């Protein structure tokens, strides 16, 4: 009789619990991570990066001399774009194939572990599944790697492309204004720092003043935008039943991209 009573309580409690908004849900156990720094140390990447660095050093000296010869701001911009393009082309040529193979290896291993998202190791401080060794083995094997047939399971973690949000007109205008302000302040404070010579106390005082000026401006110009973006992102995430949102730069595979929704929310 007593046992039956307890069972009834349990049954009622569990029933009530399952309808409450705080119902027990399945824990997110399908988060994988990869140590990209370790992957970058593989000989193939080291040698490709060395080649790229050599090319960049060569470009840098050409860039510097062409910039010195530039007569107008338009010329400078054209030169800058041209060199950026040349570097990206080389990057695509040298690192591109390796990057594609690594990306496919991540997707394959992720599918094998039924992971909904794979992120960079840097953003996971506890738990998650480390797939670095599996990805390395597959990457180094001689076999061809095909994209997985099935798409990843639905994710609890979303991501936004910060570079896209930064290019929104009002955000870009604020960032540009901030950069301009910081550059001007540097022009004002740097000579004072140089004049302070080895007087550490004086230097510290000047630097603190510079820092405060820049921070105040940041709070005035950027903080409202950062807060608004955070709120909009959290609102969209809630609607999509996501737990957290991270930056796209930290996502290697899977996850739910909510950048467009956040963009729309911010444009309201």
């Amino acid at each position, binding site marked *: 009789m007593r046992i039956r009573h307890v069972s009834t309580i349990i049954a009622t409690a569990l029933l009530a619990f399952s309808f409450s908004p705080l119902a027990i849900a399945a*824990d997110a156990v399908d988060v994988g991570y990869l140590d990209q720094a370790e992957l970058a140390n593989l000989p193939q990447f080291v040698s490709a990066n060395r080649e790229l660095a050599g090319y960049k050093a060569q470009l840098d000296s050409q860039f510097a001399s062409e910039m010195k010869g530039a007569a107008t701001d338009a010329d400078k911009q054209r030169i800058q774009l041209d060199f950026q393009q040349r570097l990206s082309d080389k990057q695509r040529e040298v690192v591109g194939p390796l990057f594609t193979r690594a990306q496919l290896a991540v997707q394959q291993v992720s599918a094998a572990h039924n992971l909904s998202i794979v992120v960079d190791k840097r953003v996971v401080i506890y738990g998650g599944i480390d797939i670095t060794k599996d990805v390395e083995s597959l990457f180094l094997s001689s076999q061809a790697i095909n994209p997985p047939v099935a798409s990843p399971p639905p994710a609890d973690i979303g991501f936004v492309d910060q570079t896209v949000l930064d290019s929104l007109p009002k955000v870009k205008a604020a960032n540009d204004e901030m950069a301009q302000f910081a550059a001007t302040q540097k022009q004002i404070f*740097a000579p004072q720092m140089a004049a302070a010579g080895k007087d550490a106390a004086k230097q*510290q005082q000047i630097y603190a003043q510079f820092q405060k000026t820049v921070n105040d401006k940041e709070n005035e110009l950027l903080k409202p935008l950062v807060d608004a973006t955070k709120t909009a992102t959290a609102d969209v995430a809630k609607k999509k039943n996501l737990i*957290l949102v991270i930056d796209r730069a930290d996502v290697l595979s899977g996850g739910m991209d909510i950048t467009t929704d956040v963009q729309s929310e911010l444009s309201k």
Partner: protein
Amino acid sequence: MATLFAAAVLPGCGPDVHSSSVRGVGYVRLDEVVKHHPLYPQLAQLDDAIAAINLAASGPHVPLSAGQMQAQIKELNANLAAAQERANKIIAEKETRYAKLEAAAVAAALSAAGVSGAGQYAATQTSAESAQQAQAAAQAANQDFMSYQQSVIAQDNAAAAGIARQLQTQAAQKFRAKEEELQQNETDLSLRLTQQDATQRLAIKTRLSNLALDDATRSQLTQQLADLNAKEEKAISSQRNADQATLSAYQAQLNKETSAAIAAQTGSIGAQTRAKIEERHDEVSQQIRSLGPAPLPANLPPGVQAKIAAIHKRYQAQFQADAQGTVADYQATKADLDKQFEALHGADVGATGAAAKELDALQKRRADLYKQIGDQIKSETNRIAKDQGFTTVFVDITAAAGGYDMTNELIKDVESLHE
């Protein structure tokens, strides 16, 4: 059973880790936790010191006099030459060491293969002698290239210094001309004022020379004369102040124009120099590539030849890996000296020389300290997350719609490290 049920369902003091909004996921606002770590004041101090060096280095550079520039260029050239010599010496030592090791390995391989009497010969021919000859030739080519590079850079610097001197002389001449022009204006004004007041002054003086003048009138006339002098002096002084301001502004404008002109001219000289150096570099690289090891004796069996080739390849790779560090050190020193050359010519290149070294040391200390703080926070996070049954804990998130924010708990934890 009731206890089990309570443990499983009641949230108790900890968070409801398995609720639908948390789903086993936690997150930490790492920056906030770091700020409460006992070592944070040291970290902040390092950050400030790094930022202060960067700030001091980002300022506009005041153009140096030709003499100062010459002295600094001489010092930089000496530093570059010393770095080149040091790197060459270390690389030559490594080359010799690896050549000896390779020779010994080849001799051992030949002897193991039973090539009679060929051990010494083969080792000498394939490794020691021919490799040393090739190395000597490569070293000579490198030395030749470096001397060429040094002489071209020295020419560039001499030409740049000459141009700087010439432009600074021109600027000084312009300034002197302006100074003289303003001085002349001042003299003209003084003359004009004197002429303007001459009649009045003469009349006052004539009246003052009359001995029969009463005291009141004499005093009045003396005052009139003093007023005239004061008026002239005021006009001249006001003109002088205006001229001084004009001169200061002119000096600033000349400095700016001179710096820009020096940067433009030296930039173009630098581009020509780089082109010349690159051309010679290509020639030397071609020359060095053609210096392969001496051919192996024809009578060696193919298996032994392959073995010797593999040994050569292995030691070559080892030597290259070993030399890489020396080359990287030299490149870093050269890059810093290049930046100092550019800074001398008015370019904004950030911290250089001693400041760059200090910056580097501070950044290393900062990275070590941050790692120490980060490791401690990670270990505390692991303990709490494990105790409370989280599956995953994130840091550096963009936004949270759910999950459990462990930041405050961790702050309390790291703060207790103070005690």
